[in-house]
């Protein structure tokens, strides 16, 4: 059961989100959403006509589509679309001093092992984190291989021949209400093109590029890996990031052409006032592989179900996901695997941890249509409940037609065993340490698959979140 110390531990997290900085923006579309907003955005961004049309169509679809509350959380109704600012840019951020940053925030950074320089940026102390230099170095290094790594706005203007071919094709405007919203007001996000056969050695990080601009609420990312190429892309960072905007609704489209390998890593740690409603989908052609590694720690409500459409023979799709739902949070995450060719294989491994009054939901879809041969899917969902008030749900939907395919789904719900905790306490650990060790053990086999720096930070973050959750 919950105790005083409980609340305290959770408060650490909440306080992290409490710092903010004043921002003055050169461009501000104001609150509310109408055709006027769309024209404002298109004018400011000097969109080509087809993009303006695309946006208007997005708006129309968004307004027509009902809220998906017949299956989704009623909490969605709390979003007031008229109070949201849909476009802000050209801001200069006011300075404040390191001394003003609350102690516990500093402690979080320290525990996470974030470099001094970055800490100052994340805390809003330094308006201009010197990421421009890092970004241009990366850009230069991969540019020599012919890789295009730019913002989505720049991408659609400078590389229309590649951009237009795939943009809005993996996730059409009308896919869902929030993809329509994103189509209407998108700005920010990355555009990456990897030419045939090019294997990008180091992961590309959105972190450096986005910091050079402004954090986007409605970012739109399109990544195309041409035949035989390889890429790892990372989005977000483990450090808590405060955002005044309460709605974050991104669209991410991935295309892996024949034999390409594309891995997309997300670590989401929005502050606890944010609705994070994201549509992510990858298209895997023959022999290609799309892999989503998705980690959700922050936000008030996250709804995100990374999908892979396996369109070519022997294509592979994979989703590895970790969700941590603390007090007041609902992590509604999952995966979709659409098998559309023979011998396609997919794998979903999802682990969630619910703490305090947190709620973690897994929602999945596996579809094997008829006359396909030798398709395989494996789904494993494990949920860990920490407190008596925690909640977890699992809602998979699996359709299999015809013979020759094998699909299996397994889910379990459990809690940390009292014996384990007792054993560790015998060995001199405090109960909290024992608990966080158990939880880390629970996610360990997944976290190991993350790039090293992420897995280290993640482990520390879990320790932080777990602190005092048992009393």
């Amino acid at each position, binding site marked *: 059961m919950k105790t005083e110390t409980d609340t305290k531990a959770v408060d650490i997290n909440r306080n992290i989100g409490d710092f903010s900085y004043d921002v003055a923006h050169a461009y501000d579309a104001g609150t509310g959403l109408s055709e006027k907003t769309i024209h404002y955005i298109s004018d400011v961004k000097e969109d080509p006509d087809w993009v303006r049309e695309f946006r208007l169509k997005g708006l129309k679809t968004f307004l027509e589509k009902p809220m998906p509350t*017949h*299956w989704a959380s009623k909490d969605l109704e709390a979003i007031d679309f008229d109070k949201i600012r849909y476009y802000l840019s050209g801001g200069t951020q006011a300075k404040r001093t390191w001394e003003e940053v609350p102690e516990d925030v500093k402690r979080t950074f320290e525990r996470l092992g974030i470099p001094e320089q970055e800490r100052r940026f994340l805390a809003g102390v330094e308006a201009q984190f010197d990421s421009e230099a890092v970004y241009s170095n990366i850009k230069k290094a991969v540019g020599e291989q012919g890789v295009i790594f730019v913002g989505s706005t720049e991408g659609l203007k400078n590389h229309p021949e590649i951009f237009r071919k795939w943009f809005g094709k993996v996730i059409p405007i009308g896919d869902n209400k929030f993809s329509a919203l994103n189509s209407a007001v998108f700005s920010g996000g990355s555009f990456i093109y990897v030419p045939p056969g090019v294997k990008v050695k180091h992961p590309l990080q959105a972190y450096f590029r986005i910091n050079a601009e402004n954090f986007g609420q409605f970012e739109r990312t399109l990544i195309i890996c041409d035949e035989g190429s390889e890429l790892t892309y990372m989005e977000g960072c483990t450090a808590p990031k405060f955002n005044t905007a309460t709605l974050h609704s991104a669209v991410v489209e991935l295309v892996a052409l024949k034999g390409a390998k594309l891995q997309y890593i997300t670590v989401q740690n929005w502050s606890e006032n944010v609705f994070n409603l994201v549509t992510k989908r990858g298209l895997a052609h023959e022999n290609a592989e799309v892999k989503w590694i998705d980690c959700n720690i922050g936000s008030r409500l996250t709804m995100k179900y990374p999908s892979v459409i396996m369109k070519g023979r022997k294509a592979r799709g994979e989703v590895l996901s970790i969700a941590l739902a603390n007090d007041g949070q609902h992590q509604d995450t999952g995966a979709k695997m659409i098998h559309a060719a023979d011998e396609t294989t997919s794998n979903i491994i999802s682990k969630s941890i619910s703490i305090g009054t947190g709620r973690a939901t897994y929602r999945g879809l596996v579809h*094997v249509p*008829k*006359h396909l041969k030798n398709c395989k899917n494996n789904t494993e969902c494990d*949920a860990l*409940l*920490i*407190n*008596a*008030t*925690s*909640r*977890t*749900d*699992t*809602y*998979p*939907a*699996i*359709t*299999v*037609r*015809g*013979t*020759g*395919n*094998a*699909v*299996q*789904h*397994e*889910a*379990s*719900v*459990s*809690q940390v065993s009292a014996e384990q905790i007792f054993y560790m306490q015998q060995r001199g650990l405090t109960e909290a340490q024992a608990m966080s060790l158990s939880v880390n053990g629970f996610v360990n086999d997944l976290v190991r698959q993350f790039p090293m720096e992420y897995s280290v930070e993640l482990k520390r973050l879990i320790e932080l979140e777990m602190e005092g959750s048992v009393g």
Partner: protein
Amino acid sequence: MSLVAHDEVKKAGGILSGPVESRDLPDWFREQQREAWEQFQALPSPTRKDQLWRFSNVDLLDLKSFKFGGELSDRDRDAILEQSCGLDEVAARLIFAGDRLIERDVISEQLKKRGVIFQPLERAMVEHADLFRKHFMSQPAVLGSAKFAALHKALVSSGTFLYVPRGVEIELPIEIFHWLHGESASVFPHLLLVTDELAKVTVIESFRSLDRHLLGFACGVNDLIAGPGAKVTYVCAQTWGENVRALQMNTTTVDHDASAMSLNLHLGAKYSRFESLSRLIGEGGRSDLLAVSVANGDQEFDARTLQDHVSPHTASDLLYKNALDDRARCTFGGLIRVERHAHFTDAYQKVRNLLLSDDSEANSMPGLEILADNVRCTHGATSGQIDEDELFYLRTRGIPISVAQRLIVIGFLNEVIRRLDQPAIAAHLNGLIETKFAA
């Protein structure tokens, strides 16, 4: 379903004309039926967009053409009685044709003396009004069919009421038959089983059609109440004719230290949907939910379940197996719900689909909603086909491929039937399955 002009339906004796007024039922019951009829009319028809009807072919539930059961000719009556063969040894038997009781083997005097009540519904509602009213359709239908539960309540005219008092154990099973006869006929089978403390009983209900090709509609309810420490076993053997649309709504309430086991065998009907709600309301309660389906042709089976753990220290275990051939479709939508404070729950749910043809389709939606901790819950869903190695092995032993396939499927399904631990019933159910394969 679309409602056609009222008069037109009434003239044709259609079920959409509402409750029949001329029946010999108590006033309070008729009043309830009128209310239920209004509810039925007010509630919206299900669509595939409803989460609880996802994947279901709701178009098949057009009720326009269905009529109340007509007269039963002597020849049909004799045919039904002759074909009502189930178990060799039973404690009692009721046979209904078109919702009318046509034959009964009553319980022994000894059981009667100990207070066992085994009566048709219409008698029980008069002679044991208090007990009846307390339990009759007392749980709301929460698995999607509220509209059809209202229809059932409005139109039910007979059925079985069984009460087993404290400490009474009925060793032999009680057998009930429900027959559909006549073109476009409908039936509303009902079973209300109430057991008191430490009572024990097994009931097997068979659902059959006299003519296997005629259109028909069945909308049944069975409510099982297991009192403290009671042991209730319920078996449904559904072999409706090939053009029947069937709905079956079950609620099982399990009190402390009681155990309930249900097995639903689905072989017949064009479309058959069955909803099972198990409510575990007392510590130490346990519920086993078993189902076996063999679907071929254009058959569609749609199972929706809820294992609702209301009280701490309860257990439930679900095992559903489907074998699908031709263009058959099966849908399973199940949920384990562990309510707040229902700590120390043990809940399992497993659905396995065996696809035997390229056009068959299996949809699985196993779900969990856990609002307590200290629970152990798992679920699993698999879809696959016959293992080539197993088939090869049998063929090397000289068994022709079609026989080998059948053996493997029967073996696959038998795991569920064995769980009943009642050899006589198991043999009967296996016989029904083999008859279906032989056809």
